């Protein structure tokens, strides 16, 4: 085959793959919206779950997800960024222990989430006695997303040129001032990308939360981190598994709520990112 033809066909191959994937996604979203839109209203958002589909609402699951995500972020982000800063800016890179740590972090990022669920069950629910609480759930999810945040933050920190560090040191800066005043602000956009991805993953996680005891039916919204909880994907899973057709429709409405929540979180993160990218 001549190269000119090869050139054209490769271009069309990549283009059609892109559009095909996008098309499937759009069909999926369209299908869900058509199914769920008649149930998506204020009553749906503000009602407790119920046996009858007309009365059923998503209030407890939505509140549970918001609680879980807030605390997951609260636990995972400081640990993740601090670990990345330590590994990149302080730790001796060639030390065998540091290398071992690095390999393990990479492996942990690829572990099936159900294993984190079992870990959470053993440590947080049983050993530490947090029981089936938001605390146990969010700590488990924080462990799950920690490796991803660490790796993404490390990449972002690596991308900060050394010339910036040297310029700062040459002005008499101490190491913490170089790290906090120059490296971290320059790395924030990249770090935010990692956080967005990992939080989005955490929002959709079902398996580990079922293991640490997310409820499928709960009659009140949580008021403290020691309360029981359910989350959107668990609720959606529960509805989707019922035989009644109407429940499939409210499952679709639940998916719409989940998607909207994801989009708004991403929007916040993108805003923060662009604030820090002002000086690029």
């Amino acid at each position: 085959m001549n190269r000119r033809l090869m050139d054209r066909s490769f271009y069309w191959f990549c283009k059609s793959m892109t559009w095909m994937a996008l098309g499937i996604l759009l069909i999926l979203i369209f299908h869900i919206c058509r199914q769920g839109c008649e149930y998506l209203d204020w009553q749906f958002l503000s009602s407790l779950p119920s046996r009858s589909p007309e009365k059923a609402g998503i209030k407890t699951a939505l509140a549970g997800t918001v609680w879980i995500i807030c605390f997951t972020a609260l636990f995972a982000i400081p640990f993740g960024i601090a670990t990345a800063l330590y590994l990149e800016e302080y730790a001796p890179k060639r030390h065998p222990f540091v290398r071992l740590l690095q390999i393990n972090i990479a492996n942990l990022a690829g572990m099936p989430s159900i294993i984190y669920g079992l870990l959470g069950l053993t440590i947080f629910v049983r050993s530490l006695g947090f029981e089936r609480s938001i605390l146990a759930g969010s700590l488990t999810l924080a462990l799950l997303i920690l490796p991803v945040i660490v790796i993404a933050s490390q990449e972002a920190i690596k991308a900060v040129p050394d010339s910036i560090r040297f310029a700062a040191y040459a002005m008499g800066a101490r190491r913490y001032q170089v790290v906090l005043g120059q490296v971290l602000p320059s790395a924030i956009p990249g770090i935010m990308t990692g956080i967005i991805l990992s939080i989005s993953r955490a929002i959709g996680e079902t398996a580990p939360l079922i293991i640490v005891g997310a409820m499928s039916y709960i009659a009140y919204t949580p008021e403290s981190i020691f309360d029981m909880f359910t989350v959107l994907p668990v609720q959606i899973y529960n509805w989707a598994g019922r035989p009644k057709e109407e429940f499939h429709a409210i499952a679709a409405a639940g998916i719409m709520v989940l998607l909207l929540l994801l989009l708004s979180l991403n929007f916040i993160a993108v805003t923060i990112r662009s604030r820090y990218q002002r000086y690029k």
Partner: protein
Amino acid sequence: MTEPIIKIEDLSIYYGEKRAINQVSMDFCNNEVTAIIGPSGCGKSTLLRSINRMNDFVVGLRNEGKVLYRDKNIYAEDIDESEIRRNIGMVFQKPNPFPKSIYDNITWGPKINGYKEDWEKLVEESLKRAALWDEVKDRLHSSALELSGGQQQRLCIARAIAMRPEVILMDEPCSALDPKATFKIEDLIHELKESYSILIVTHNMQQAARVSDRTAFFYLGDLIEYGPTKQIFELPKKDQTQDYIQGKFG
């Protein structure tokens, strides 16, 4: 020769086993421009970076001998290297402004060192001294990275000046710039020597001849010849210096 501000005594610098600087002793005078010239790899940047301890960041590098700043050995145990760098500023080969606004580039150094200043005034003065004020006064809060290469390098000089150092080290400050921007920086060096002692490493001999009062010629880690620039360029005492200046090697 005025009173020396930096004295190097018997300094040798090693990269692992390799010796980059070989038992060099020399003095740098106050309020003068000293040029360090020599072919690539002769150790001139290594020597420059030993004066504000920027060599501390090079893994496997080792010093012998002394570098005295105001009669204190900067490699002594009780010396705080960040204090040294506050008084001995540095301008790098490639312009490296911080990814912040022009204003913040100037104020960052003094702020982290706990200086209390009239910041507006400091920014204006520093930029004026670096001959950049007129070009940027209307956009102090826009990104430093939007400036041209030559402007960025002058911003780096302004940033160094804002720390009110006594000595400014310049490591081939014009090697990444075009002739017009180079001319501006050279002009600036002339003005700055009124207030600062300047050490400039350059591979450009014409530049050394134009800007410096004294010139040191290095070859393979040895200080071959050091004296008033006029003498070095017109009546060099050593054949090696003569050959280098005439462009026979380099």
